[in-house]
């Protein structure tokens, strides 16, 4: 079984992102970039399925600028066998990204595609579901457990009320939640080995997909800030403030 893992290069999760001075966009000058944390979980799951003998090949794919090769190399160091960059200098929306990915999936015909549930830059939480619709594949979002069983997979999903288990027929799209696994760190020898693995660069222009954006970003601003609070001295003080000042308990 071949597994395809779409990954995204995003701002590192520890960075506090701010708007540009003219509020036209976020300020990404000189900020640390990394693989989206949910994509790390997706790579890990695919690599574990390979280690378990269930999968035969893991292909990491990204749609983005040339510098996204850095994150593809990380995926290769974590255990992916080869990588594909669908290169573009434009910032694409999830719909367009899903269209590019579906083209690649048609060529690669994997049995399983594992994505992150959400990229922590735009917090869109869309690409996997869109891809499933475009390919008419089954979808299992927000996975916390995946079991492959012949030509189907049993997936436990984190939903608002608790956990749900569904059976999806393969080929399927799975998106990862935080508790699916704990990703490993790449070892130095594996980082060295990854440099020699195959990384294919394709130009999006040649794919014949409509990548036009449907949305315009009008502005980016800081959220309303909270008024500075106070420190209370004791539990008694806290209770009286909540009763008399804030009036949120009686």
């Amino acid at each position, binding site marked *: 079984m071949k597994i395809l893992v779409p990954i995204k290069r995003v*701002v590192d999760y520890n960075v506090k*992102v*701010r*708007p540009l001075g003219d509020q036209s966009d*976020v300020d990404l000058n000189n900020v640390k970039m990394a693989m989206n944390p949910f994509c790390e979980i997706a790579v890990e799951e695919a690599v574990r399925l390979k280690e378990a003998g269930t999968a035969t090949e893991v292909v990491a794919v990204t749609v983005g600028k040339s510098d996204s090769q850095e994150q593809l190399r990380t995926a290769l160091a974590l255990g992916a066998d080869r990588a594909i960059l669908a290169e573009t200098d434009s910032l694409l*929306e*999830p*719909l367009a990204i*899903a269209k590019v990915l579906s083209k690649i999936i048609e060529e690669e015909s994997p049995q399983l595609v594992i994505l992150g549930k959400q990229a*922590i830059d*735009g*917090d*869109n*939480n*869309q690409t996997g579901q*869109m891809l*499933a*619709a475009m390919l008419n594949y089954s*979808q*299992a*979002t*927000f996975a*916390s457990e995946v079991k492959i069983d012949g030509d189907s997979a049993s997936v436990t999903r984190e*939903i*608002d*009320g*608790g*956990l*749900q*288990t*569904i*059976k*999806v027929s393969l080929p*399927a799209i799975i998106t990862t*939640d*935080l*508790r699916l696994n704990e990703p490993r760190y790449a070892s130095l020898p594996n980082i060295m080995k990854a440099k020699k693995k195959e990384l294919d660069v394709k130009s999006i222009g040649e794919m014949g997909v409509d990548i036009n*954006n449907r*949305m*315009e970003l*009008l*502005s*980016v*601003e*800081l*959220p309303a800030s*909270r008024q500075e*609070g*106070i*420190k*209370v001295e*004791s*539990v008694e003080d*806290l*209770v009286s*403030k*909540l009763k008399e000042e*804030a009036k*949120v*308990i009686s």
Partner: protein
Amino acid sequence: MSILVIAEHDNANLKPATLNTVAAAKELNGEVHLLISGNSCQSVADEASGVEGISKILISDNAAYENHLAESTANLIKSVASNYSHILAAATTFGKNVLPRLSALLDVQQISEITEIVSEDTFKRPIYAGSCIATVKSNDSIKVITVRATAFDPVNSSGGSASIENIDADNISDLTSFVGEEIAQSDRPELTAASIVISGGRGMQSGDNFHLLEAIADKLGAAVGASRAAVDAGFVPNDYQVGQTGKIVAPDLYIAVGISGAIQHLAGMKDSKVIVAINKDEDAPIFQVADYGLVADLFNALPELSEQL
């Protein structure tokens, strides 16, 4: 111009977030319709027909819709989509699962988790875990939108008189089947609907210690939440998680106990009206958003607080 809201329900009752989503739909100045798909769910339609602001209910009652699986639900919504300028659902795990699938079927770019409606095509939404707010304009002919429930006050659940119309199931998919569900049962209010929430973090040290929070929750009629660290450590189930990738809450009072205040946690609670933080580290970032901070060991503070309430 008509607006379609996708109802969320358990085949018996409407989920509260639907009322917030209808409130957002009303701001768009059109007739609001509600789509209910489910199995033996007539009672949901009866309940919804009383909800303020809805003029028509479309109900598709079919065994295939029992568990609200994305494939069939998205196909059904698509079958009526051309009648609408906007299609909205709450940004819950249900809405997040179904609506992007629908938008790809319609070839439109979804607008995720809006917090404000600027005009019929322009919306505000948080990005980067709420560090920034983006204003975006959609140029698609049908706008597919998920709504952050806490950003819109719910409409009244009574006073309306919507008509009810049955619609046929459409293009039922057998790609996915339902196996089972473990839904947490609790007498406490639902996290996203509670007016008081008390959450514990890694500082709680164990799941057993959550009884310290539960004792207080019971006195205040509060819901209990948690940070990701507390969920990952297995102290409490996943549905307790508040944050960027968990639940978004905005109660009148949020009490964070033994939580450091990582940006991903703040993303889920910083719109609460009053925030209290109890933490033994006076430099914990949670104090920067807290209206009332108490620097104390939670194992002393919680029993004392419980006693004084």
